[in-house]
């Protein structure tokens, strides 16, 4: 029995056994194309359709959204999503593609949305019938998110949306978007309202999606232009003027605090998963030639690998400690670190992996001689997406310094 299973309550143990049995009985076919490193790098329809099919099966097997109420399309379980995640990972299954829906839209809608949204949108989100994206950032509102300029104007009983969002991962495939818009220009924070908006249904009409290219050369994120998109009022999430508050729930989940705040949601970024695992450096070092021996024989590189393993384990044990209030001085102290710490560890792990490879670190994805197909170099470049997105890590440090240490606001 695994370490994880040892800690289960009886109903969790039973659920874990169900997951394990289903996964054993229902193997996935080999992917028809190379899969990207995470959902936000999905470029091709063939990748998406394979992953979407997998998420649908996982949902039907009760492993997605299972901690949500039945009315929202969930299974009404408690503390079981983490178990499903562990078992899916243990079985070597790929990530779930609807990451932005599962990780951000679903908890926000569950907490702040209305019954219409919960009952109609969440089941299709969990089953991957609908793909979701997030419309927060704008050209002039990156770190300064409260500077959002996209307008939501009253129009009869509904709203008309006009503006320009950027860095919108998955928008090129998305059916729906969670949107932060300005409903009142007179107030900065109190002038924002939060919506769910249909994207695909309005493409070529009032919605335009223009793909952006990443530094890796991959596509997967986009600019989205709204030219008077009309939506009914029941697509609003939370009260008028409360958008900033609602968005905080989304951001808390985006930044990795989700598992400590609300039912975890099977997203890729939780502490149980790590694309670039520091422990993987041990094996890479053993295989990498260096100065006549291997990188594993180089004490300086060993030291740096140990530093990263220690940081990663520190972060993992921190996730465990955050669930033991008696061992935490401040409830937000560890949760607010999650995105910051994980993204920087990932970046440093990938950078060190490239160094371990020596000359072969020059090779890129697709080269026949690149160690592990060049995935480390690609991972290194993609790691900046995470250190920049969801509030740059500089902003994360402000938040920690201000909310946890009580220091004066830096802006």
């Amino acid at each position, binding site marked *: 029995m695994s*370490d994880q299973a*040892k*800690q289960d309550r009886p109903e969790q143990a039973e659920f874990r056994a169900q997951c394990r049995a289903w996964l054993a009985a229902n193997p996935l076919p080999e992917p028809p194309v190379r899969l990207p490193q995470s959902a936000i790098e999905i470029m091709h329809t063939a990748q998406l359709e394979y992953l979407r099919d997998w998420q649908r099966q996982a949902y039907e097997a009760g492993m997605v959204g299972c901690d949500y109420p039945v009315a929202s399309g969930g299974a009404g379980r408690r503390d079981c999503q983490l178990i499903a995640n562990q078992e899916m990972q243990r079985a070597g299954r790929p990530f779930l593609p609807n990451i932005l829906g599962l990780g951000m839209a679903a908890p926000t809608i569950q907490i702040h949305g209305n019954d219409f949204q919960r009952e109609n949108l969440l089941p299709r989100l969990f089953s991957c019938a609908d793909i979701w994206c997030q419309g927060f950032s704008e050209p002039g509102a990156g770190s300064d998110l409260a500077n959002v300029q996209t307008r939501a104007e009253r129009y009869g009983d509904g709203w008309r949306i006009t503006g320009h969002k950027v860095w919108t991962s998955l928008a090129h495939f998305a059916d729906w978007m969670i949107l932060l818009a300005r409903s009142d220009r007179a107030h900065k924070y109190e002038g924002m309202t939060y919506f769910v908006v249909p994207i695909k249904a309005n493409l070529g009409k009032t919605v335009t999606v223009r793909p952006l290219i990443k530094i890796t050369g991959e596509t997967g994120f986009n600019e989205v232009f709204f030219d008077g998109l009309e939506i009914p009022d029941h697509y609003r999430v939370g009260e008028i003027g409360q958008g900033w508050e609602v968005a905080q729930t989304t951001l808390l989940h985006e930044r990795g605090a989700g598992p400590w705040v609300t039912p975890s949601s099977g997203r890729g970024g939780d502490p149980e998963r790590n694309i670039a695992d520091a422990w993987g450096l*041990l094996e890479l*070092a*053993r295989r990498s030639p260096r100065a006549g021996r291997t990188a*594993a024989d180089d*004490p300086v590189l*060993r*030291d740096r*690998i*140990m*530093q990263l*393993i*220690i*940081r990663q*384990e*520190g*972060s993992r*044990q*921190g996730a*465990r*400690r955050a*669930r*033991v209030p*008696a*061992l935490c*001085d401040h409830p937000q*102290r*560890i949760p607010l*670190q999650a995105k*910051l*710490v994980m993204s920087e560890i990932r970046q440093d792990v990938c950078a060190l992996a490239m160094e371990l490879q020596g000359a072969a670190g020059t090779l890129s994805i697709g080269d026949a001689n690149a160690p592990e197909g060049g995935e480390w170099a690609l991972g290194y470049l993609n790691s900046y997406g995470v250190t920049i997105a969801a509030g740059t890590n*500089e902003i994360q*440090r*402000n938040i*920690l*310094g*201000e909310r*946890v*240490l*009580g*220091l*004066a*606001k*830096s802006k």
Partner: protein
Amino acid sequence: MTQPKDFGFDADAALLRDTARQFLLDQLPTEALHRLVASDHDPHRAPTNNWNPALWRQIVELGWTTVAVPETAGGAGLPLVALAALAEEVGRAALPSPFLATAAATLVLRQCQGAGTRDLLGEIAAGRTATLAITPRSGAWETAACDLYLDNGKLHGSAWYVQDAAKAEVLIAKAAHRDGLALVAVPVTAAGVELVPDSILDLTRDQAHVHFHGVAVDTAQILAAPGAGAATLDAAWPGVLTLVAADLCGAGEWLLQTTAEYARTREQFGRTIGFFQAIKHPLVNLMIQLDHARSLTYNAACALDHEPERAPALARMAKAAAADAGAFGASRAIQFHGGIGFTWECAVHLYTKRQKHNQILYGDASYQRARLAELLFGV
């Protein structure tokens, strides 16, 4: 085996820790600590040993020395995470006391098989103080390194870097014998024991080297027979490292909170200096480092109880993380206090010096990582 979710930190442990924290806040506020240890500022002063034995007697009454002593030997036998949490509070108060040295000795004794072990553990629970005398003059932390010899029932040679030696009643000494290393209990008052105090940077403890001039040892004093000493010490070692890590975490948290408080109140350029990211961001980095170190410390302590086979690696991780966090925090605390941080009157220097000592003690961060790499790479 696997670890409990809560690191074994149960209600008893929490009560012990909370009581300890309040006790130290009440009994040894920072100003009292400064008066106690920093009255003589002359860098050329003779070696000092400033502490409060009356406070120590209260601590014994509070049961701190029973925590790691098994119930079978008259102790409380709490999970080791409780001992780590206690060491953290000791670090937070920068308490000058024989607590750490005695706790380390206790952890070693728990691994001993010698006839007198149980009695000695019982005495420790009741307040007798002890320390390890296991390090050679070279300062080598490796088990095999030894400048003390057991020959025909007598101890010759010396032990160095003995922690809080002037506060200890019993030395747990490592001695080389022709059959291998042994561990021996030696009262500091035994004939032939000569204790020479060191001048050290840390004002909150004492340190000495001890010469053994043919000190007679009888069978009841043999805690680990010749040949059994190395394995005994190795088994205890993760616990000893974890204790130091915990002290570093506690003192590190004091430095973080004290510096944050200064940053919330000190004004320059019309703003409190915590406004400036040159202050704010390093403090956040320190907080993250301390949180990692603290989580790893509980993890290592819990492993000692629940998965001892993993404890050696996990304790190295904890000590490495705590030593780095300790050094970084000590450095930033002085710097961010500016001119006042450079003065003797500001208590920051007491903690900074304690952190420097603990950073070094039993091996600094890169030393720990080198040993960890041997475990993880299998060489």
